[in-house]
């Protein structure tokens, strides 16, 4: 079965579907032709409950609340970092739509694996932000009892098998998680996020090959935020496309507008369906933008222009979703303001919880190294 969708082609790009202006990416974005995808891959789901099936009021407001929570959480994380309470805070501001649109289709039994920049993956997967903030501050009440920190947040009960501080390192791990689903015969899906920098790591290619020959239910999601630390995408990615690399492994690769939660939602719905149906892996390259520096203390204006930043920030994913919600009358401004306030209060609660929590007991230095030893 040969499935191709959303690949780079010479067809004119279909922009403006949701009223957004044409982008000036170095690589051309092809907005996916959603109808044709649906025609190729009928949404058979073997009775599996996907939390959000369709774009409607419920799913749109869930995405909005999730994305605003991420934004407020990251702003507060930055304040905590600036106050000297944590180091190496990799902010995901600007990239909220990507994990949100995908996790809308995942349940708690599905797995997500992340990167060094993974707070947004964790929140979108439903992790408790109190425990997350506590982990950032190294407190005993954190997701990993304060032993992992900002780059190693995990909660297996929520299907978050961990952020990972080594670029690309989680890609084969996620492939193995998908192998478990295949061997056990479940319809679980494994989603791994990585950046454009990780697309140059050999393990992506090894994993796409393995997932390709074994038809594993894994979704490779490249958050192309244009920068591998301080090195721009157009310098480090030969061929100018991550999605195109799927071609070599016989799996679908699609490039989407990662600033559009709606595009992410629709495309990932098909990718998740494919995985659940046993049709194998999908590679999604979501074009997005990191608003802040790589880790906070660096000034991104050292390697990119103010004009570029302003351009991408003008396509803010939260504002775009907000506009769609208001234009479609799914909610009014008062209702959205109430959600905003709820998110701020939740982050305030998390901050208070984290700051008031104790540091780990000294004995925790040498516990949890092994299950038994």
């Amino acid at each position, binding site marked *: 079965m040969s499935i191709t969708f959303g690949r780079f082609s010479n067809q004119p790009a279909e922009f403006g579907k949701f009223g957004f202006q044409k982008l000036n990416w170095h690589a051309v974005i092809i907005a996916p032709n959603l109808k044709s995808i649906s025609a190729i891959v009928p949404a058979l789901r073997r009775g599996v409950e996907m939390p959000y099936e369709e774009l409607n009021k419920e799913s749109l407001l869930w995405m909005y609340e999730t994305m605003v929570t991420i934004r407020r959480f990251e702003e507060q994380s930055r304040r905590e970092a600036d106050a000297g309470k944590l180091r190496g805070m990799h902010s995901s501001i600007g990239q909220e739509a990507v994990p949100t649109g995908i996790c809308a289709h995942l349940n708690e039994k599905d*797995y997500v*694996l992340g990167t060094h920049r993974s707070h947004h993956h964790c929140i979108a997967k439903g992790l408790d932000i109190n425990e997350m903030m506590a982990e950032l501050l190294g407190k005993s009440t*954190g*997701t*990993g*009892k*304060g*032993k*992992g920190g900002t780059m*190693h947040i*995990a*909660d*297996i*009960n929520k299907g978050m*098998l*961990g952020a*990972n*501080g*080594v670029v690309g*390192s*989680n*890609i*084969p*791990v*996620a*492939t*193995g*998680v*998908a*192998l*478990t*689903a*295949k*061997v*056990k015969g479940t319809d679980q899906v*494994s989603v791994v996020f990585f950046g454009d920098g990780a697309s140059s790591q*050999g*393990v992506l290619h*090894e*994993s796409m*090959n*393995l997932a390709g*020959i*074994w038809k594993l239910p894994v979704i490779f999601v490249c958050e192309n935020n244009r920068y591998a630390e301080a090195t721009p995408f157009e310098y480090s990615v030969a061929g100018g496309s991550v999605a195109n690399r799927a071609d070599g492994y016989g799996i679908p690769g699609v490039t989407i507008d990662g600033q559009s939660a709606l595009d992410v939602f629709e495309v990932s719905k098909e990718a998740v369906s494919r995985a659940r149906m046993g049709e194998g892996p999908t590679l999604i390259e979501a074009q997005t933008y990191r608003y802040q520096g790589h880790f906070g203390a660096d000034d991104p204006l050292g390697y990119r222009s103010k004009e570029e930043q302003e351009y991408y920030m003008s396509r803010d994913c939260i504002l775009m979703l907000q506009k769609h919600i208001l234009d479609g009358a799914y909610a009014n401004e008062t209702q959205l303001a109430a959600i905003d306030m709820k998110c701020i209060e939740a982050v305030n609660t998390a901050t208070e919880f984290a700051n008031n929590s104790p540091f780990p007991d000294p004995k925790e230095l040498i*516990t*949890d*190294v*092994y*299950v*038994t*030893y």
Partner: protein
Amino acid sequence: MTQAQTVRQISFIQAINEALRQEMHRDPDVIVMGEDIAGGGEREDFQDAWGGPMRLTKGLVNDFGRLRVRDTPISEAGFVGAGVGAAASGLRPVVDLMYVSFYGVCADQITNNAAKMHYMFGGKVKVPLTIMTGIGAGTNSAAQHSETLYSIFTHFPGLKCVVPSNPYNAKGLMAAAIRDDDPVIVFNNRQLMGLRFEDNVPEESYTVEIGKSELKTQGEDITLLGIGYTTRVCMEAAALLEERGYSVEVLDLLSLSPMDEDAILSSVKKTRKIVIVDEDYPRCSIATDISALVAEEAFDYLDAPPKRVTPPHTQVPYSRPLEALFVPTKEKVLAAALEVLE
């Protein structure tokens, strides 16, 4: 019934094969994967073409099918990493890393993921992964297919490392590794693989406890400490020393992490002398580590400084006469022991 009839002798390879088969029967979550683990990929007419490069997995695909016995591409970072993910999400994978030297292309998955996930995630994620890998010189395989390298993995908190020395403990340690909830690396010496030993290997399933050494012979004058293949060398040297009237204690370490420090110290406190025989490179090695342990913890009991017998700080050579100079031999152990004794 004579004693000869009660002793069941099988080879090291058969012992590991038997452990894998029994564990796969016992637990449907056990899977095996690696290069040519069956051989022949999915070609119906050529199923089980190899049964593993060392024949360790021969016949498994016929018994358990391709879902659980998986030929992989030559892609160690990919499939060792997949083993980590499979382990963390509910399987008990056994991954074959054909030669330990190939760790160089998948080290990140072993040391950054398998070893660290349990700790980093606050003890809430388990990684019951078993990696089995071939080690050792003496097979005319040159520098990239002859290393030992277990000291590298012993260095990492979070990993367990075991080194069987005969078919009995090869079978028991493999079963124990698979049932263990932590990542365990089983280092199988290739010089031992084809050999049968006098030891009885029960047909039924059993485990050998990880972290425990075995006292092969009890003696009063000197302790010879062996690891895997060098335990055999120690036994040969012990026979030579017994001929000269010495009473020799041979300790088979079996497990490097955890390490049976109590057994090492109690033996050396009794014999007051120790020769540590290790096939790994000499710098930052297990032999060096044990030497330091003995010096720090049993100094007052020693009649002579701890002595190490290791290869020189060099590569494993291809040429057979040169390679014979690399691996510790009974003659070298004898000479070292006599130096310590006299």
